[in-house]
């Protein structure tokens, strides 16, 4: 933690960055994102097991984007998000300083996107075991069982879009749910509309979701919405051999055309 604070302090003092996006103490034992912009505020930075929010989401936020050069405390999911959005031309490498955090909670030196790619190549990550177990359970269900599983899970959804807001890859200023010429999905939170919203979002994240689980964690109604995009991750991995968020210049899976694609409709 001292390493982290020192590095952050140096960065602000030397004006290498204007802000550090990091974790600090919140209320009632919670942690929260904090944004030190002065060297003395870096004392407030912390890192421990409670720090699970994927901070990369803030890189896409209007106010923070406009702070130009920024440092970010980046765990592995955050690093993957950074590479993913960079590959979608949403980030400038030279406006970003990474304060990498390894699985052991220690600071790692990540001097740029290339270094990040190399670092991630040495890391082991995948879908957490408990989520995997549910995915296998869903795989084993009949169509009807799946439908009723999701109907049950999705019916309370009130479309607060916390899942979307928490996701670093959901950065569109006008999400498809807000497009109304034509209207893609109903705005109100009704049964079918909820299905449409979540299935379409999952499609938009196919090949882009990096399994941070932030959407599910953000949901105030504890809807395990991350399972949908996780499933897409698995499918994209099996069908196209692609894992999101490993390279800063990776073409998007779903908009790439290859002659050897196994689906015939595309040829």
């Amino acid at each position: 933690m001292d390493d982290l604070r020192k590095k952050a302090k140096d960065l602000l003092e030397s004006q290498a960055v204007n802000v550090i996006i990091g974790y600090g103490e919140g209320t009632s034992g919670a942690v929260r994102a904090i944004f030190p912009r002065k060297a003395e505020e870096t004392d407030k930075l912390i890192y421990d097991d409670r720090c699970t929010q994927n901070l990369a989401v803030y890189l896409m936020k209007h106010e923070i984007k406009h702070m130009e050069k920024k440092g970010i405390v980046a765990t592995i999911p955050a690093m993957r998000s950074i590479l993913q959005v960079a590959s979608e031309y949403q980030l400038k490498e030279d406006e970003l300083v990474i304060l990498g955090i390894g699985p052991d909670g220690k600071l790692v030196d990540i001097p740029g996107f290339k270094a990040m790619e190399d670092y991630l190549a040495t890391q082991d990550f995948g879908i957490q075991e408990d989520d995997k177990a549910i995915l296998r359970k869903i795989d084993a269900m009949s169509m009807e069982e799946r439908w009723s599983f999701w109907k049950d899970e999705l019916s309370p959804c009130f479309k607060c879009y916390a899942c979307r807001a928490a996701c670093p890859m959901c950065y569109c200023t006008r999400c498809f749910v807000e497009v109304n010429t034509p209207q893609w999905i109903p705005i109100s939170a009704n049964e079918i509309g909820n299905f449409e919203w979540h299935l379409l979002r999952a499609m938009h994240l196919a090949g882009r979701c990096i399994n941070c689980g932030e959407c599910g964690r953000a949901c105030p109604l504890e809807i395990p919405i991350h399972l949908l995009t996780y499933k897409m991750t698995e499918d994209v991995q099996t069908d196209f051999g692609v894992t999101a968020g490993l390279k800063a210049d990776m073409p998007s899976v779903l908009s790439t055309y290859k002659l050897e694609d196994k689906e015939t409709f595309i040829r």
Partner: protein
Amino acid sequence: MYKENIYLPYLMNIERVTEEAPFVKTFRLKFANEEEGKQFTYKTGQFGEWSVFGEGESTFCIASAPTREGYIECTFRQAGRVTSALASLGEGDQIGFRGPYGNVFPIEEWYGKSLLFIAGGIALPPMRSVIWNCLDLRDKFKDITILYGARAVKDLVYKQELEAWKNMPDVNLHLTVDPGGETPEWKGEVGFVPTILDKVAPASKDCIAIVCGPPIMIKFTFPVLEKLGFADNMVYTTLENRMKCGIGKCGRCNTGSVYICKDGPVFTREQLKGIPAEY
């Protein structure tokens, strides 16, 4: 006394469609239910929620003058889901209308004074209502000056009425288009509204200025008016925020504690200075 569904529209028959400019149309509307039409009253400055069943509602002002009875009119630009649907309708089709909502231009308070109307682009509709209203009461006012500008000649709306106003001996009409927007036949001014205002320089003594237009035009027009000596309480404008309900409930239109749907849309410049600029 809440036995009425306040979101129920009146059903309106489209009597006449006028193409005003590219993507801009005017509908003349009559109440499908004559009884409702007879009881309906409104004042200039007020707005409504206009709807296409199946597409939703859209907010804009009533563009006709209350002095013209038997119908109401609206002018809209085709831009979103509802206005596109409206634009696809024609004579004989039906739409929904809720209103009238909002406050009004205090025309009675202006009796005995001169009037200066300044409008830009598609913002002429709220102005058209008040202009006709005042022209229909012509002897109550001194000089009437209208300055209207659009980006290009083709974007000027209400071409017939502009012609009519031009031919009225007791109306000073100045038309202008932005530089580059003129055609070879164009006989009006060329220049932005604030520039032309500065050039025309109407006298501010005993004169009320009514300004409607895009925020940027208003922003540059106010200082010119100030220079010409118009006091803040002699300058009126209308604000447009996103609206849904039109009646102070949906929470969408407020700027600070002021609800544009209820407290507006008509404000004096003096009032605007007292409220946060969330519009």
